[in-house]
Each structure stands twice: as structure tokens, then as C-alpha cells.
């Protein structure tokens, strides 16, 4: 696996507007002389990752790493902020798993206590003794609901990104490896999927797949599955274009030629030679992808097409009691803050991972 040989690293990618802020002198987009194709459609959507999506952005030559550019041990040289972000994510995942498996209970997320309804910190009705974070509009404990909601939100977002990465990443490698007609068709498909605003596409898919109104019990597919499918499909073209560009540049390298000369079939080359090299670049955007999927889940829930009650998700807790924003702000803001902090942590970690898998030009 060439990736592990010191001196070979993933190809340099341009700093993205999202996070890879170049230091002074490293040049950013190269200013006035930059090729105009650096401007890609996918950078236009701020809610999506600023994915660099085209082969033109990848420099085909791998950059030789300096002495400090070799592989570092995981966790080495992480700053405090990164550790805080990791701790936050570990905390959220732990809570979610404990709530789902029922190993530790914070009360019943479905049990409503009338005396507690709409009460909580900063609520007009006063605080709710025994319920640290208060209760929702029908008196269900917020901690129990937020904990189970964490499971639902993580399930949907991780699932969706997995779907996007397996399908999008696979198609991207196929497009990049074979090129020609296959590439034209697949890239065309990606472009068409990108031609509808992501949130509208996801909304339409969920609304139509959920079909039967009012009652979750009437639908053939569980809500989390429909959401994974919809957000996953939306992420396919974004992931696909990155993996295509990466596969395209790697497939022109000598080791691929060598494998072919030894009689390796296309499938083997794609899985054994290309995949390990494309994977790091993909992984570095997976965390950002999960952050975006969590926000997407919340957005869809507010638009009325999320996970349907009684199952709580961060999004639908907000959506259910949005009308009580003025009198019981805690119901709306507790999940909002969780979504924001989780998105922030994942964004930051994604940035850390990305800079790790990259060698800056200044490092040459």
C-alpha cells in the first residue's frame, strides 16, 4: 500500500474555502493567474462541503513529503481544541448508545407528566424540579428525549454518509479508472443530481417515499431508512466527484501500470490499488459530511419530513414545539445547541483530518 511508504502521500489539493485557510505565502487560489476552472459549482453551496471536484484541481504528481511529512501516530500533536471536539463526540455517541440500548436510563422518553409540561430552565412556567433540562410540551423529560434523539440523529447522518460514500465513492472510482464513455455517463449523472438544490431534492425524496400521510405506522419503510436513503442519494454526486478526481489521478501512476502488466484485472486494480489511495481523501471529508447530514436531518424535520413522532430526533424535538419558542425556549434551544456543537466539533475534526492527510506546498 503505497500510502504507507514514507515519501508518498495523497496528492496535494487546493485549500478549500471551507477550512483549509492557507497561510500567507502559500497562495490560496493563486490570485489573478489562477485557472478559472478552479471555480466549481460545488463550491457554490455553502451548506455543502466545498468539495474540490475535478481532476483539474488535483496535481497529478504526488508531492514528496519533507522529513516531518511522514506518517504520524494518531493523536500525536493534536491541540486542546481537537481533544475537546473528540471528547464531545465521544460523549454524544456514548449517550446515544446508552439511551438506545437502555443500559443507563434517564427516564422514559415517552412518559408524559402533565405537571411538568412546558416547564424547564428559562421557561415562563417555571423550572421543573427533578428534570434538569425541563420537559417538552406534553411533559416528557427533555434529557431522555435528547439522549434518544441523539441516537436517531446519529443513525440517520452516519447511515446517509455511509450510503453516499459506498455508492458515490464506488461510482467515482469506476468513473475515474475507466474514463471515456463510462466517465461521461457517470459524471453526467452526478451533474444532474447536483442540478437540483440539495435540500429540495432531499425534501422531495422523503416526502414522496414516506407517502401515506399522518401516520408513521402506515408506511412501508421506517423513517430512519427513508431519511438515510434521501440524504445518502443527495450526497452521492458530491462524494462521487471527489473520488472520481482522486481515482483519475492515481490511475495514471506507475504502480497501476505495474499491476496491469502483472495481469491484474480491473476490479482488482480498483480495489487493491486505487481504493487504499483514494480512501484518505475520502475519509477526511466524511466527518464534514456527517456534520452536514445532522444539520440536514434537523432542517428536514423542521420542514415536516423528518423522523415522525413519537420517536424523538434532535430535529423533530425542535419541529414539534417550535410554536413554544417564546414561552418555553428551552425545548427548542436544547436540541439546537446540541446540533450546533456537534456540527462544530465534526467540522473542526474534519479540518484536522484533512490537514493531516495533506502536505502543504510549504512542506516541500
Amino acid at each position, binding site marked *: 500500500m503505497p500510502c504507507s511508504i514514507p515519501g508518498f502521500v495523497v496528492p496535494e489539493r487546493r485549500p478549500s*474555502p*471551507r*477550512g483549509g*485557510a*492557507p*497561510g*500567507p*505565502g502559500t*497562495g*490560496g*487560489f*493563486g*490570485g*489573478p493567474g489562477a*485557472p*478559472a*476552472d*478552479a*471555480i466549481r*459549482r460545488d463550491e*457554490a*453551496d*455553502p*451548506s455543502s462541503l466545498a468539495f474540490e471536484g475535478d481532476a*483539474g484541481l488535483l496535481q497529478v504528481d504526488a508531492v514528496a513529503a519533507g522529513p516531518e511529512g511522514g506518517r504520524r501516530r494518531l493523536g500525536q500533536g493534536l491541540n486542546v481544541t481537537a481533544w475537546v471536539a473528540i471528547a464531545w463526540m465521544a460523549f454524544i455517541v456514548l449517550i446515544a448508545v446508552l439511551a438506545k440500548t437502555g443500559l443507563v436510563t434517564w427516564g422514559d422518553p415517552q412518559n408524559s407528566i402533565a405537571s411538568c409540561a412546558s416547564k424547564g430552565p428559562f421557561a415562563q412556567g417555571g423550572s421543573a424540579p427533578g428534570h434538569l433540562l425541563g420537559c417538552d410540551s406534553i411533559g416528557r423529560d427533555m434529557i431522555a428525549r435528547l439522549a434518544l434523539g441523539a441516537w436517531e440523529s446519529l443513525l440517520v447522518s452516519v447511515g446517509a454518509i455511509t450510503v453516499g460514500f459506498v455508492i458515490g465513492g464506488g461510482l467515482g472510482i469506476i468513473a475515474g479508472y475507466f474514463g471515456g464513455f463510462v466517465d461521461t455517463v457517470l459524471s*453526467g449523472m452526478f*451533474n*444532474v443530481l447536483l*442540478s*437540483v*438544490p440539495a*435540500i*429540495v431534492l432531499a425534501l*422531495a*425524496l422523503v*416526502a*414522496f*417515499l414516506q*407517502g*401515506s*400521510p399522518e401516520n408513521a405506522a402506515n408506511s412501508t419503510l421506517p423513517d430512519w431508512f427513508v431519511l438515510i436513503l434521501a440524504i445518502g442519494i443527495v450526497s452521492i454526486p458530491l462524494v462521487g466527484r471527489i473520488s472520481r478526481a482522486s481515482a483519475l489521478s492515481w490511475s495514471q501512476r506507475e504502480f497501476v501500470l505495474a499491476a496491469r502488466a502483472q495481469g491484474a484485472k480491473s476490479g482488482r486494480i480498483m480495489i487493491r490499488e486505487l481504493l487504499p489511495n483514494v480512501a484518505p481523501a475520502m475519509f477526511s471529508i466524511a466527518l464534514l459530511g456527517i456534520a452536514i447530514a445532522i*444539520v440536514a436531518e*434537523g*432542517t428536514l424535520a*423542521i*420542514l*415536516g*419530513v423528518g423522523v415522525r413522532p413519537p420517536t424523538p430526533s434532535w430535529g423533530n424535538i*425542535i419541529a414539534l414545539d417550535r410554536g413554544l*419558542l*417564546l414561552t418555553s*425556549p428551552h425545548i*427548542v*434551544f436544547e436540541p*439546537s445547541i446540541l*446540533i*450546533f456543537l456537534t*456540527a*462544530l466539533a465534526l*467540522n473542526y475534526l474534519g479540518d484536522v483530518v484533512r490537514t493531516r492527510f495533506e502536505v502543504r506546498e510549504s512542506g516541500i
Partner: protein
Amino acid sequence: MRTELLRFIARRLVQLVIVLFVVSIFTFLLIRLLPGDPVQTIIPFAKGPQFAKERAQLRRDLGLNKSLLGQYWSYVIGLLQGHLGHQYSSGLPVSTLVDQSLPVSLQLMIYAQVISLVFAIPLGILAAYRAGTKTDSAINTSSFALLALPNFVLALFLSFLIGAKLHWLPTAGYAPGWLDQFFDGSQHMQLGQHLTDMILPSVTLAVGQIAVYMRLLRSDMIATLQENFITLAKAKGITNRRILWRHALRPSSLTMLTVAGLNVGTLIGGAIVVEVIYDLPGMGEKIFQAVESRSYVELQSYVVVIAVLFVVVNFLVDFLYAVLDPRIRRARTPA
């Protein structure tokens, strides 16, 4: 030169037609994704026999008595003639609803763009000029946090704090602005009220863009400031302020402006959640209501309208840049 431009436009036009064709197939299939008989799902039998007329209208709108290909054909012909179906609760044609709601979304998008550029440009210049200093890292850190801040969280927070607690600005409601009368003649402009109503939604939408534009401008500007003509300008004794605003800004702003251009389409559809939270009667609010009442034909029409707008706007932006900047058409035409 001419032929190069013409070839570029022709290629993009072919792409445009293909994309529009696929979008029409996709939206056509949406209704067919519904489990069971679409007519029954949309207007359930439980609602009673008085809905027979609506059901018949729906069957006609969908053309369900024809073959799948025939259904698609009549769907596309209908779209081309501007027939977008009916809203079953009111019997109004969807095109009327689009005329009422589209200008709201368009104005929101324009305000958001203006606000974000007005803030992003000075901040980007400042961050680039002070690159590597505390000012720069402060701007960068806050833009990082703003990027992770979901639209709906900010919208809820602002409407709670500014609207409900401080009572500074309205958080719901809408008065027609300067654009509405062109789409729907019955609207009368109330500019003052309109602008007041639009402040919070536009700011909410703009905040995320500020971070994006600022970062793009900053990185391009840092590169520009290394150029020889900047050194020359400095040597001539031109003031820093003049160098930054007059010499460096224009060559650095191409990436940012292109992204802003492409955002025009994204913001029309992407503003849904902001419109819903602030109760603006734009396309997003209409989509929300259609989803809520499971008015599928209406929803399908809104998806078509937004997708077509998005595709066409992106085409126009590409076209405009190809005319303005020859490097683009060369870069995108494979040798």
C-alpha cells in the same frame, strides 16, 4: 475568439437541455414513487364522496388513464405550457401560487447576497492585509463557527432574541416589496414595512454566506498581494488603503463573485427553512405547506420550478462569466 465563445455556449446549451430533460423525468417519477394508487394517497377515500370531483380533476391532471409514456408526454407538454396542476384545498392553479411566492424568495435572496457581500468584502480584505496576525485568526475563527451554525438555529435564536425578547424587529409577516407587483398585479408596494420584515430573514441567510465569501476573498487576496504590480504600487508611494481597494480587490474577487453568482440558484431553494421559521410567504413556505397537507402535485410543481430556475440561473452565470473572462471558456473546452 468568436467561434470559441460560440462553441462554449453551444456545449452549455446542449447540457442545459439534457439536464432539464432529466429533471422533468425525475419530477415526473416523484408522484409515481408514492406507495399505492397516487390518487387515493393524495385524496384518501376516508375523506368522503364529496371529494369525487377533486379526485377526477387529479386523475385528469396526472393523466392516469394513459400509458406511462403518454403520461410523461402530457406532463411535459403541460409544463411547457405553464400548467403546474392545482392546489386541491383551494382549487387555485399552482402557477398563481408561484406568482405570489416567487418574488418573495427572489427578494430575500437579493437582500441576503447584498448583505453578505457588504460584510464579507471589508472583512476579507482586512484578514488578507493582516494575514497571520491576531485580527486574521479572530476573523477566521469566527467565520469557522459561523459556517458550522445551521440556518435554522440562527433563525430561531434571532427571532427569539431580537423579535420576542427585545421587540426590535418583526419576526413574522410580510408586506409586498418592489418586485411583487410584477408577478402579481394585485400587490401594492409597502416598501418600509417590507424592508423591516425582511431584515431578520436576510441577515440569517447572509451570515453563512459571509463566512464563505470572506474566506474566498481572503485567500485570493493574499495571493494577489504577492504580485509584482502591488510591489510597484507600493514603490510608487500609493497608500495602503488605495492599493487594497483599487488595485488588489478587483483581480482577487473573481472566485468570490463566481461563487456568489452560483449561489443565486442555491439560495432560492436553500432558503426554505428560513422562510418557514420567519413565516415569509415565499416558495419555501409554499413547499412546507404542500408537504404538510401532503399536496403532492403542488409539491412536484414547486420542485420543478425551483430546479428549472436553479439550472437556468447557473447556465446564465456560466454564460456571463464566459463572456467576461476568456480564460473560462478556454479552460472548460477540452482540447
